[in-house]
């Protein structure tokens, strides 16, 4: 396939993307009507009235606890809980989002830092490579998220609560993608380039800073994107076992306890926006860094 300039590709796909998004919203409305009408009919039957189709349709779009809230209900709830509420209020989605985000970022920073360190060790030490690497790869096939409740409760029982336990889970989830990607990246210079540096009489340290580390940047950013998404999921799941105190995960759990579907959907969309923003930010950093290094194609 011929490579198109980035800008051209974007404008070319705006119309199809908008079409698909519009189709999704239309489907959503249709599904909201289909799933909520039973409740409306039951209510009407109890009241002994016979609603017209238009009345049913209007009612399915504005129920208090619909099975599937209509998009505009979720949008209204989002507006209400982000812009209309004070940021410090416990009912503000910004407040909950910030709690989740801070745990995510702390965990992501820890996980990424440790991951890079381990990758450097693996690349420079054969024994470490052979003993740790198979486990790092195997650990990606394990549902690590399952240990989240245990970490929370155990750390709570030794007196650590709040931000740190969630950050530990986030760190753990972002750790392995970074290790695996970074090892691949640090090994990406080929024999010719390594030979060139040895003809320059470069030592290991110089080879690392001048060749291996720059060459690993594209790999690093790719795994950072995976890692930050995993971190966010980790922070959200980490908020479940403490029993819905604060954070996006807590909003999900509280919503599911009390049947507040609109609240669940708005928390979910909040999480989606957060994830998209985080991945987008790393993508931006990637483009800026690679452009500054002259690696952009």
């Amino acid at each position, binding site marked *: 396939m011929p490579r198109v300039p980035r800008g051209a590709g974007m404008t*070319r796909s705006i119309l199809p993307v908008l079409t698909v998004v519009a189709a999704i919203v239309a489907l959503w409305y249709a599904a909201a009507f289909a799933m909520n009408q039973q409740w409306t009919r039951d209510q009407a039957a109890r009241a002994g009235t016979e609603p017209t189709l238009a009345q049913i349709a209007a009612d399915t779009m504005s129920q208090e606890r619909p099975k599937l809230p209509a998009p505009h209900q979720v949008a209204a709830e989002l507006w209400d809980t982000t812009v209309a509420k004070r940021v410090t209020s416990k009912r503000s989605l910004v407040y909950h989002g910030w709690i989740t985000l801070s745990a995510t970022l702390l965990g992501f920073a820890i996980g990424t830092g440790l991951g890079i360190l381990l990758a450097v060790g693996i690349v420079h030490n054969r024994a470490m490579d052979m003993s740790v690497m198979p486990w790092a790869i195997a650990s990606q*096939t394990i*549902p690590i998220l*399952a240990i989240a409740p245990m970490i929370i*409760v155990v750390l709570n029982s030794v007196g650590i609560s709040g931000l740190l336990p969630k950050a530990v889970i986030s760190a753990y989830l972002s750790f392995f993608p970074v290790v695996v990607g970074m090892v691949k990246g640090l090994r990406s210079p080929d024999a010719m380039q390594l030979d060139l540096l040895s003809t320059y009489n470069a030592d290991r340290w110089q080879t690392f800073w001048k060749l291996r580390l720059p060459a690993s940047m594209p790999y690093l950013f790719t795994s950072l994107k995976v890692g930050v*998404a995993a971190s966010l999921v980790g922070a959200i799941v980490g908020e479940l076992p403490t029993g819905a105190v604060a954070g996006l995960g807590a909003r999900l759990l509280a919503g*599911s306890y009390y049947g507040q579907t609109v609240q*669940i959907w708005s928390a979910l969309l909040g999480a989606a926006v957060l994830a*998209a923003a985080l991945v987008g930010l790393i993508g931006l950093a990637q483009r800026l860094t690679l452009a500054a290094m002259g690696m952009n194609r």
Partner: protein
Amino acid sequence: MSWIAGALAFWGLAWWANLRLAAMPGTRATRFAVPALFGVTVLVLWEGVVRGLDVPGVILPPPSAIAERFAASLPILWTDFVQTFVKGALSGYAIGCGAAFLTAILIDRSPFLQRGLLPVGNFVAALPIVGTAPILVMWFGFDWQSKAAVVVAMVFFPVLVNTVEGLSAATAMQRDLMRTWSASYWQTLLRLRLPAALPFVFNGLKISTTLALIGAIVAEFFGSPIKGMGFRISTEVGRLALDMVWAEITVAAIAGSAFYGLVAAIEKGVTFWHPSQRG
């Protein structure tokens, strides 16, 4: 104290042995022995430190206690495994991957839909889809159906995006060749483009194995019948029976890597011609 000293001594010994092994020319045996020795060392250190420092079992049980609990509660672990893995994860995995594969083939003929769906699919694949679990549990009830639904939602987009990408993997030259043979669309699809897409499809399938298990387990945190791995983990954590939690995690780890290994083995058999599988 002797526990800790013993564990540290074992650590030193294993370290030395691994250094020696790693310095030897890499054979199959050393490639297996070094990580195995490392794993055993971690277990020995864990056991020694926990026993030596008298760490209470509600914080970190020693591996021996976990193994004991594992052996003692095999029936419970098995029912949980069947409920979560076989009923929830596997059925959801099959439905989700099948649906994604069919969707990819359906939109294959429309570049317009592809250009629209791919960015959306890529976007959705990065979202915390696990979060839909409370909604799906509300819709499909507490039993395995809702878990399968979460799994479907989680695996759909990775497989879709990878399959669509794979379907464009055949080169223009190869397609032209098919055209010179006057092959129809379906012949080209079946003989050339689907086989060429398989490495990509399997990439999506492999990513999805882990996602499937995660989805099935986390969905149980939002409500489940009184069996299942996620249910067991969350209730036993509440009772501070951590040895049982670790036993359940062991099951999850074994199931997860076995599932991945199985898909990888199938890939090896089906795409034996691909450069990444030779050599």
